[in-house]
């Protein structure tokens, strides 16, 4: 039986300890946020809470979840994430596949154009005007269409296709009579699942977290996604607390919720928990592809 030497044991111990500390440093802030989100706001302002809520409450979540529009906002976010991610992977990978073929006429010029627009863009106002002309303002598709093609992902995919799909396989399929579309669907896509999982996750997280599009390009509250909704709720809480202070009112003795539970900080913590929780659950499912996927394309033969 193979036994570890003393130095190897020491290395393993130190290595594990350092990684454990690193993991703790990464995970603890998240745990701290969860703890504060379940603690009464005013009590939390006294400090000294580290591991468990001291005065437990659900009111921070109640304030956020109370509004019925949150359910709608949630489904808008789910829909845009599902459609946006799938569509983006499909469109981007098709372009990447085309550009990975050396026989494509004008390939280098096209790559140059893509590189240029990736590095330089027109800014917010021209983009907004473009959306106005395309009638995408106040339209669900504003979440999906502008993000359908990601140049950065296209470059990653192109490099990956060139390196992982053997040219001989493509050639043999061509000899068997397969066209480019068939090669794409039967060879390129199935061989690139790890890459799709990794890039899909990045795209999905981007869609899930994006509050800006909903805030600036959509006025209709029924079309606003979850992050925009939460941003609005935060502003409302802060505003109402400012008003209460400026009114110099006596205590809200007949409140529906316990006023002590709510501070802008405690609601902010609950907001963070609600935002990150669903997307956090996605990670374990795609983890097995993850490391493999992000390394694809990084090494050239």
């Amino acid at each position: 039986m193979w036994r570890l030497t003393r130095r190897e044991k020491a290395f393993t111990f130190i290595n594990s300890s350092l990684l454990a500390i690193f993991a703790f440093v990464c995970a603890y802030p998240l745990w701290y946020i969860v703890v504060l989100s379940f603690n009464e706001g005013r009590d939390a302002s006294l400090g000294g809470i580290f591991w468990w809520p001291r005065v437990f409450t659900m009111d921070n979540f109640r304030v956020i979840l109370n509004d019925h529009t949150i359910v709608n906002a949630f489904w808008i976010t789910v829909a845009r994430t599902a459609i946006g991610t799938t569509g983006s992977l499909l469109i981007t990978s098709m372009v990447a596949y085309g550009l990975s073929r050396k026989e494509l006429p004008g390939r280098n010029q096209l790559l140059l154009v893509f590189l240029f627009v990736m590095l330089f863009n027109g800014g917010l106002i021209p983009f907004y005007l473009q959306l106005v002309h395309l009638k995408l303002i106040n339209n669900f598709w504003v979440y999906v269409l502008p993000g359908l093609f990601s140049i950065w992902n296209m470059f990653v995919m192109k490099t990956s296709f060139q390196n992982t799909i053997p040219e001989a396989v493509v050639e043999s399929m061509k000899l068997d009579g397969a066209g480019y579309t068939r090669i794409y669907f039967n060879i390129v896509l199935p061989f690139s699942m790890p890459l799709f999982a990794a890039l899909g996750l990045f795209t999905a997280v981007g869609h899930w977290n994006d509050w800006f599009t909903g805030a600036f390009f959509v006025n209709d509250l029924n079309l606003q996604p979850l992050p925009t909704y939460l941003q609005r709720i935060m502003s409302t809480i802060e505003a109402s607390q400012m008003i209460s202070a400026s009114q110099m009112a006596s205590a809200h003795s007949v409140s529906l919720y316990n006023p002590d539970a709510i501070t802008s900080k405690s609601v902010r913590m609950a907001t963070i928990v609600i935002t990150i929780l669903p997307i956090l659950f996605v990670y374990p499912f795609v983890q097995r592809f993850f490391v493999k996927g992000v390394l694809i394309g990084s090494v050239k033969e």
Partner: protein
Amino acid sequence: MNNRWKKSMISVAAVTMLAALTTGCGTNGNNSNTAEGNKQDAAAGTAKETHYTLYAPTQTTPINLDGPITKEVMEKSGVHWDKVEIGNGGDVTQQINLKLVGGDFPDAIILPSDSLIWSRLVSEKKLLPLDKYFDDAADYPNLAKIDKRIIDNWRAADGHIYFVPSGYEPVVDEPSAWQGNAQGLWVQDSLLKKAGMTTDDLQTIDGFEKYLNAIKGLKDAQGRSIIPLSLGGENFSGLEVVMSMFGVQSMGYGWNEQADGSVVPDYKLPGFKQAFEWLNHLQLNGLLDPETSFQKKDLFMEKVNNLRFGAMLFDGWDNPNQSLIKANKLPESISYKALEEKGLPEGWFSPTKLPTTPGVKLAQYASFNPFGGSGTGVSAKIQDPDALMKGLDWMQTQEAFILMEYGPESMGAYKMENGAVVVNDNVFRGPKFWGGDNGGMTSVTENGFWWWKNLASVGNTHIKTMESPWPSYNAMLYKAEEINHEQGTFGLIPKSSRIKPIIGGAVEKYNPVQSDIRLQYYAKLLLAKNDQEFEKVYNQFLNEMKVRGHDEDTIAEFNKEYKAYSETPAGKITITVKRTLPRNVYNDKPVIVGE
């Protein structure tokens, strides 16, 4: 493998199609802000009713245009709002820029009255000049009644007035005694007593330092050392109070008017350097909170609520008195009179007069702004401005204020008794009013009270109201403002704070840079290890302001602007307060205020 992949692709495609069908189709269908119902009702109703759209970018809770109070306000004002578009909680300037380029400008817009966006809207000719309405006493009596000094104050650079101010003092020379200025020195009573001193001993800087030294070694109940002095939350928030002690005005961007009528920035005055020398000396002797330079507000609040400080030179609002009331299980609404009879709780903070230096007059840091907090501008392309202005004219009345504040009398939040408003707190603080979720904001916008005052309303100073005694912790804030009156640190908002920088000018361009330099060097000045280092840092600070902050350009530009502004009606405004209208702070039973 291939089959599995195919299956999963088919599933993804199916989900995508389904989601696209269920969500995408409902694009513009149902805008909750659009009161379609109202539109139809109105079309069937009287021909006089006029319909408008409103944009309130600083408002973030959706407005329900079917709310009972909203309906009443619209009916009485004769103005029907078809759509109230709200903001998203993000940068307001950015939101409005996009609106302007998109060409989608509403009939009316509400903005904070001191917002720089007004200048932008005026220069792009998006707004209608409203001068004639404030002069037409026959048709718009309530708008014409607004003090001309208020109108003059808000005139744009071209001399016209472009918005209807809201929340202004109805009688400028007889304002409310409470303007929200609680800044100053706050001292922990029990520690002062423990040090064997009284507030009279704190009237000089030497006496104040003696107090700080006396409490330096003390421990709190948990055995933690008392921090003798705090400068408030993040970004040196209490600095303007310290500067005042050395005769320097540092509010706004720190412009100080000189005897010759010119203005110089605070850091060019000797008192500025002396103030930092004093703070550096306190820091080196362990008398100042060592985390002053870099702490965030959360950390500061943690220390406040744990009674770690012996004294605070700060804005006053974040004192721990309300927490103390709760911690001592006292009724939250207990009046100051009742609390004094019981004995103030251990750790209670009281506002106190500032220490002074012989020969130095305290500078103003507390401002009185009778001109109102927000304004409503009217689009230059509006169809029928007169009808809208007629509605805004009605909203200046006391009747409108009472409706917008408490709802109709039938809702039970108030009743009129002998010409005074008597509030029923059980209803007014209940679920339909301020007791609702989100701190009442949902009820505010669903039922439609309070927020309409942002659109147009007079201040309530002269509305006779039966007011309950203020809770004791708020009484302390009021007392702080009284002290500011007494010691001369209170005054009309200075001219330098009322001037709007030239769009694209040096002041607008370099103010943010100068603010960054200030914060960076304030920390360095505070943390200098000795006099030599302090001197070196101070000179570096002046040099940075000159080179990176372009202060020669900003000073020259602002002086020119200041001189020109001083010649305008707004620059010549003087207000002599004849009397202030007190609030019910020190009684233990309700009394009528506003008369």
